[in-house]
């Protein structure tokens, strides 16, 4: 699939945080087949060199990198973080997070649109972390975003798709916009459901990194994403209320 004109082989995107070790992170990426890794920027003391060590690990994954503005609560903070990330990672892609609520990590819709517009004008390709709100989605597209990343549930909760009606509406409203379900997924079945609904990809982190066996869970999600996509492309049957026999009725032996 394509994001801002760049072809990506996989419909699974994976975060790089919270793994028990760099080796487990690398194993999880390998078995997930993920095509994009999310990363962040954080403070470093002189002589520490932890950033360089982490960068070496990410470079070895051989995937595209999507830096985030995680933890930013204001437009200014998000913009400056994005600009620092662009220089560090040498990419104009940015996963834009402008957080509006500390407990739910819900995006601040007003700040998000303002930051998206500013960054787009500054040459960024913005991947906005947003909600399932269709009005907000429209505003983000107006601001120049060509991808939307609605949450399934609040970050790190593993609750899955908590507003299925809203997710269906959003997908139906903008059928041609690449959409990634970002955040809140906990199980492969939830990822499959998102893909069956026509979402283009999913972004995971906690569900994989915090599993007892992150690499196995990564592969589980990869299969679910593939299964869900196949189902979507296969044009699923319409559900119905009453039973309909699948075995032919005609020709049944008449036995009493």
């Amino acid at each position, binding site marked *: 699939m394509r994001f801002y004109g760049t072809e990506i082989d996989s419909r699974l995107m994976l*975060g*790089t*945080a*919270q*793994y028990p070790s760099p080796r487990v992170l690398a194993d999880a990426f390998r078995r997930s087949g993920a095509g994009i890794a*999310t*990363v*962040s*920027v*954080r*403070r*470093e*003391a*002189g*002589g*520490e*060199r*932890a*950033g*360089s060590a*982490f*960068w070496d690990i*990410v470079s070895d994954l051989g995937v595209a990198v999507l*830096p*985030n503005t*995680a933890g930013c609560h204001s437009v*200014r*903070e998000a913009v*400056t973080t994005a*600009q*620092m*990330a662009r*220089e*560090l*990672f040498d990419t104009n892609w940015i996963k834009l997070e402008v957080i509006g609520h500390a407990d739910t990590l819900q995006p601040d819709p007003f700040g998000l649109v303002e930051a998206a517009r500013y960054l787009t004008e500054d040459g960024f390709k913005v991947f906005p972390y947003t909600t399932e709100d269709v009005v907000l989605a429209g505003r983000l597209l107006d601001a120049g975003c060509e991808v939307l990343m609605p949450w399934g549930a609040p*970050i790190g909760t593993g609750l899955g798709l908590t507003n299925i009606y809203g997710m269906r509406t959003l997908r139906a409203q903008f059928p041609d916009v690449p959409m990634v379900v970002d*955040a809140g997924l906990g199980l492969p079945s939830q990822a499959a459901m998102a893909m069956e609904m026509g979402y283009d990809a999913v972004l995971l*982190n*906690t569900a994989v990194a915090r599993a007892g066996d992150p690499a196995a869970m990564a592969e589980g999600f990869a299969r679910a994403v593939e299964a869900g996509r196949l189902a979507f492309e296969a044009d699923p049957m319409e559900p119905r209320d009453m039973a309909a026999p699948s075995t032919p009725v005609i020709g049944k032996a008449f036995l009493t």
Partner: protein
Amino acid sequence: MKITINGTSTDVQADTLAMVLEELGYGAAKVATAVNESFVPMALRGQTALAPGDRIEIVTPRQGG
């Protein structure tokens, strides 16, 4: 002069951003910088003069979701 580096008050001799990075041991490390909440590109660090009380952020690649 006293400036704030990543939230910590720090005494430095140098008076440009590039020299402060050198002084504090960042050397050739992969870092990005901001002064008083505004991004300063690598190419401009040498000509970015610092004043007492300036707030410097120095960041590197890290794990993220």
